């Protein structure tokens, strides 16, 4: 079975020295580039399965690189962002990046994100109708949700929000993306709608809403649905 090819575009050598062996050790194939130009050339010639893209590159803006990648590839892109790039991070996610990792990050976090990113986003036409984990079971075909075996009734909007999160399959969804998907175009300004509905979902689907396990808030970015085992 062929191993996924990961392209690292990162200018800091120390970080490359950490990333390459960590990923190779996990039986990924790894390519690395220190500049945007080199990285884009490699992406074209090798067509990697996933790109780890640093936003602060020396020769070109990371956002440009993302746009160019997205102009011809739908393969997952995970952003590596420094602490002072919150705004760029959200912009990159809205521009089509799949997920992000805030520096500094550990190996476990990195591998978990890569695993999630390599999973396919669920297509709109349901092929795999049931998603479950952590006591939650969501049947997309039947539009049925249950917690610990009990069926939970959701309103139409609550269900649409849940479905939007489920389809992202563990990846982060920005406020903008969720608002556009659930409320349609023009709903982007009403972030508080989203927060209120998220509070309602948590009330119904979390054991303790003040300690959410599934509906994870990414502050100032968006939300992520985590169905992995507790204590992740």
């Amino acid at each position: 079975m062929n191993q996924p090819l990961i392209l690292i575009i990162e200018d800091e050598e120390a970080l490359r020295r950490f990333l390459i062996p960590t990923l190779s050790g996990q039986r990924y194939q790894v390519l690395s580039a220190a500049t945007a130009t080199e990285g884009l050339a490699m992406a074209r010639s090798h067509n990697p399965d996933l790109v780890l893209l640093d936003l602060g590159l020396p020769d070109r803006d990371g956002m440009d690189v993302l746009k160019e990648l997205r102009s011809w590839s739908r393969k997952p892109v995970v952003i590596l962002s420094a602490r002072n790039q919150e705004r760029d991070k959200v912009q990159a996610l809205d521009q089509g990046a799949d997920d992000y990792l805030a520096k500094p990050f550990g190996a476990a976090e990195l591998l978990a994100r890569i695993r999630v990113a390599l999973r396919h986003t669920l297509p709109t036409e349901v092929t795999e109708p049931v998603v479950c984990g952590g006591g939650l079971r969501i049947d997309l075909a039947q539009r049925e949700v249950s917690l610990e075996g009990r069926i939970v009734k959701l309103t139409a909007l609550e269900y649409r929000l849940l479905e939007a999160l489920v389809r992202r399959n563990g990846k982060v969804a920005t406020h903008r993306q969720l608002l556009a998907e659930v409320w349609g175009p023009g709903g982007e300004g009403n972030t508080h709608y989203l927060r209120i509905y998220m509070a309602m979902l948590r009330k119904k689907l979390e054991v303790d809403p003040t300690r959410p396990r599934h509906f994870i808030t990414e502050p100032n970015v968006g939300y992520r649905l985590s169905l992995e085992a507790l204590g992740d």
Partner: protein
Amino acid sequence: MEAPPRPILVALGSEARSLRLIQAGFRLARERSAPWIAVHVDTGPGAAVEDAEQVQVWMQEALQMGASVQMVAAPTLAQGLSELTRTSHAQALVLGRSRDRWPWARLGHSTADELQRRGLEAELVVLDDRPEVAEPGAEGLQFRALLGTLLVLAACTGLAWLIPREGDPSQVLLVNLLGVTFIAHRWGSGLGLLASAMSVLLYNFLLETPRFRSVSAHWPNLLMFLLVLLAAQAVVGLLHRMRQQAREVQRRELHTASLYLLGRDLARSLTPEGVAETTARHIQRVFRGQAWLLFPDGAGWRVRPAPSPLALLPSPGELLPQLAAGGRVGDPLEPLVIGEATWLSLTGTNGSEGVLRILTANEGGLPSQTWELLKAFAVQIALALERLRWLEEARRTQVENETERLRSTLLGAIGHDLRTPLAAIHGAASSLLLPGTIAEATRTDLLTMIQEESERLAHLLGNLLDLTRLESGAIQVQKEWQPLEEVIGSALGRMERRQGHLPVRVDLTETCSLVPLDAALIEQVLVNLITNAQRHAPGQEMDLRAWDEPGWVHLEVADRGPGIPAEFQDRVFDKFFRLPGAGEGGVGLGLAICRAIVQAHGGTIHLQERPGGGSCFRFALPLDGTPPAPPEGAESLTPGGIR
């Protein structure tokens, strides 16, 4: 080799105009870059003691303006001056000429004329007293005054006609004295003189019997009338002086009042813009002209109040040398008139603070008799500007000192806190690299230490960066209305994912639903407060409560730890403050960050002692603005429906 420039002599007396002579001498010397000498010629005994003292004052003033001074004794002013000019090889002699001499003294008998006759080699600069400004419409008045004079004389003669005389002219004299005095007072001494002569003739020809006789027949009467003339002159002179004095008093009063008002308003101006506006307002009121303050700004000007309607201003490089005044307050600052604009240098204690430009409707700038007041204004404005500059400098120095103090605290704190984890990481890594085998347990131990210490380093650096960015305003608070529960959940979730279950009891009241806040920042506050409580009361239960009141929402993190001694309660939010005896761990930034974030939200944070032991950190966030409308179909989220 070039000969040194010949000096300029300035002759000073005790009169007030000596100040202008000093200024003129200073200016001339500056223009020609020549030395200048202030001279007083002592013409022997007779001079009053006060005069001698006043001369000393002027000489002192001249000395301060860079002149050398010299006193000479000579029988006459002209003689003394001409000798001195010759001996000092002066290139120019500046002297004044007053107007209040007898008119004939001006015809060829003035010191200047005398000096010219003596064949002076030096250039002679004579400063006249300022010309009296003609009353408006003086030409139109001349004819009317003449007519009035004749009418008054006719009336007097008519009145005298009615008085029984019988050869005794005394009553007639009184009537005529009254008339002449009135004329002289009203239309000036020239017409008064004419009127007295005419009244003599009128009396002789019309009133004295037999009429139309020759003058010589009335010698005694004629003598009488000469007395009338003199008496009228004396009365008129007195009246004139009194009137002048009254005017002078009035003028002084006006000056004092204007200066007082200006000074008061300037003292209230807190910015150069404020000073400029105050100046413009007062100059408009007192001088009826528009005023601007100009500050040199490279090749152009910074003009306040902006903008000046006339963009065509001479460049600073061109104008400043022309305005160039002395280096200190009160140094000569004669206004410069260019077209309709009057320019003045605003000279403070150490140099020019800017330039004042006044625009009046009439050609020729402001009339020169207003200059004295204008100069007083300029000094006040300059001092106000200077005061602001010093204030600004003091403030900057204070900020610099504060920054410097912080920097040294920072270096001290960081020096230690960065080194410790670095030393541990370095040590652990190098022992892992040693040749030979290490027991598996030790290996894991060392690696865990490397990970933990580097996390601590990252945390410390992150905190520092956050605090710096918060304080410099680089982090903008992005307030959004959101449920408090989400922030609390996010904070607790983040900590619990990392370290397992936390003994935190959460208690939210039913009423608080949406609060405007920056989720990432408030989450940071909660994490810091909980971490802080964990550190001081390890393993014990803590309470996280939230409740609201109109306009505010309160949050509180309370522990059952040992509490914080009262004397440190004010300081726990200070940067790098650590309780004495506190163990390893924080660096004293967590609470400082909390305070910075809460304050950036417009809220407050404080520490309370918790009843029953422990401490309680409480912060309040303002509920400002109107909460957004709830979405349709959100019936389940009635107010407080969070729980």
